[in-house]
């Protein structure tokens, strides 16, 4: 059901691709974050590796646990948390993007983040974005 181009080619059927994913937009305004989620899920299902999902700019809004979850709406943070739980996907919210937007999070070691971030999310700097780019075969911005 997903794009054929994601499947390993026949010449290199054992080849597993490593992806770094960046999400720049808020879950409230555009489809990008949801598309990134579907992409990530599909890539994992096909045996590829997701090095990291890096939430930048308004993407920083994706991981907030403090958002209520109405029964009849999607909750992007919970979807991502499930991927982290089941596949160990590293979900990193950029500290500078979060602080620029006044989100109540601090550096990684701050225990207070646990109550504010959905399971599996952590806070770190842009260095981890570069790190993901260096480890990945493909870098994709949503």
């Amino acid at each position, binding site marked *: 059901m997903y794009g054929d181009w994601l499947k390993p080619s026949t010449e290199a059927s054992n080849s597993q691709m490593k992806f770094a994913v960046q999400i720049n937009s808020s879950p409230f305004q555009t489809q990008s974050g949801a598309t990134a989620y579907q992409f990530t899920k599909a890539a994992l299902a096909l045996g590829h590796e997701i090095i990291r999902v890096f939430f*930048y*700019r308004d993407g920083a809004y994706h991981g907030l646990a403090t958002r209520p979850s109405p029964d009849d709406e999607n909750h992007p943070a919970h979807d991502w948390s499930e991927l982290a739980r089941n596949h160990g996907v590293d979900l990193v919210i950029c500290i*500078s*993007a979060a602080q*620029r937007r006044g989100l109540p999070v601090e550096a990684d070691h701050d225990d207070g983040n646990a109550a504010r971030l959905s399971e599996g999310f952590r806070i770190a*700097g*842009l*260095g981890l*974005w*570069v790190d993901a*780019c*260096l480890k990945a075969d493909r*870098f994709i*911005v949503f």
Partner: protein
Amino acid sequence: VSKRFLFVMQSCPHVGTQLEENLDMILTAASMDQTVSLLFLDDGVFQLLEGQNPAVIGRKHVAPIFQALPLYDVDSFWIELESLQERSLEDRALTLPVQVVARSKVAALMASHDIVVMC
């Protein structure tokens, strides 16, 4: 490990915090010893116009930040010819020493980099 990063600057300056957050990415990549180039196209060419006075709208001037990039070994700047022409800007002074690239060559320029960041 070092890769070649190309940041594609596509939007006007002073649009929210877009440019500031682009520069944060650029400086982080440069400070981690990556090879960094910038390509200005579409409305991104407005970022380099000489003679801007952003103080009147309470914004910071971006030219000094761009001009500081060579200190971080970022000195490869490209601008797309057609983007300038479509905006009647081809004769305007620019704040950086840029190399002009034709639209037909942009795909090859992108292909010569490992990481292309549309921003």
